[in-house]
């Protein structure tokens, strides 16, 4: 199971980094954005390959041994929050685009 998780993490990282590089080459995103996502995913792969890093991090952070479950729980809360924010923003943008398109659509219609 641990090996599968590592393989999935590597494959996902390769997908995201290659997509980000493709977008950068096509000038759809900046070099800074490309570097940000590349480094973020390199870090994720590193954590997936060396999960023990959590233990040393937790010891330094809380000066005590906290379980890996605490980290996973915190990660879930954080990810759900991010997903919620992204969903709300996308939903709002979609509604705004829809309103604009509809208003433009009937702009020239006047009673004859």
């Amino acid at each position, binding site marked *: 199971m641990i090996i599968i998780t590592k393989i999935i993490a590597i494959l996902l990282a390769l997908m995201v980094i290659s997509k980000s590089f493709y977008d950068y080459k096509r000038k759809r995103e900046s070099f800074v954005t490309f570097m940000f996502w590349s480094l973020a995913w390199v870090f994720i792969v590193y954590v997936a390959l060396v999960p023990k890093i959590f233990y040393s991090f937790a010891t330094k952070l809380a000066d005590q041994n906290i379980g890996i479950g605490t980290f996973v729980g915190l990660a879930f809360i954080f990810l759900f929050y991010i997903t919620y924010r992204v969903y709300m923003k996308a939903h709002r943008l979609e509604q705004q685009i*829809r309103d604009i*398109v509809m208003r*433009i*659509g*009937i702009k020239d*219609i*006047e009673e*004859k």
Partner: protein
Amino acid sequence: MKLTIVIPAYNEGKVIASVLKLMPKKIKGASSVQTIVVNDGSTDNTYDEAAKYADYVANHVINLGAGAAVITGFAAAKKIGTDVVVMLDADGQHNPKNIEKLIEPIINKKADIVIGTRMLNSKGMPAIKVFGNWSMNVMTFITTGGWSTDTQSGMRAISRKALDRMQLQAVGFEYCSEIVGEAKRCKLKLKEVPIQTIYTDYSKAKGQSIVNAINIFTKLLAIRISGKK
């Protein structure tokens, strides 16, 4: 009474001209008849063809979906001061001769929304579509509480009162079910009138797929959960 025929269209360049040519200029009970085509970001010549024969063309610069096109059509109809809207599909499956009996219950103040139902005489309709339509009726009832024998019919007549009261949000094909649900929520009188459908290879190919039903169901649930403003 001012009647407006609203036709949402997406990539219907091949047939839209022939559909518009069949639109009646006079209908019993209506002082005027006007046609609005809503071009929903078509990538073919739908806009140019519609502009030749329709009284008005509302143009979406990008494709939003059938429901969004209907909302735009209603807004355009209100803007020109319509009293009754009749909706037709752009693929030519609806016979304009049915418009008169569709608006009759509204003129006689017996209905606010009239659905042209294909299910009371579904002869000629492919069996898979009959099954799909009845499934959608059940899904509509579960998600909105509204009932009709043909919730997915594209041929409807809607009074000005209903236009002003309904708060449509659906951008895709789930708008059909949403209208039935809004009739219930807004306490509007809904009636059904049997209509004949013209099935051609073109109109059969244009219909919704069964797979789309799941998508519609989840969107209707989302609308139900998020509630009306």
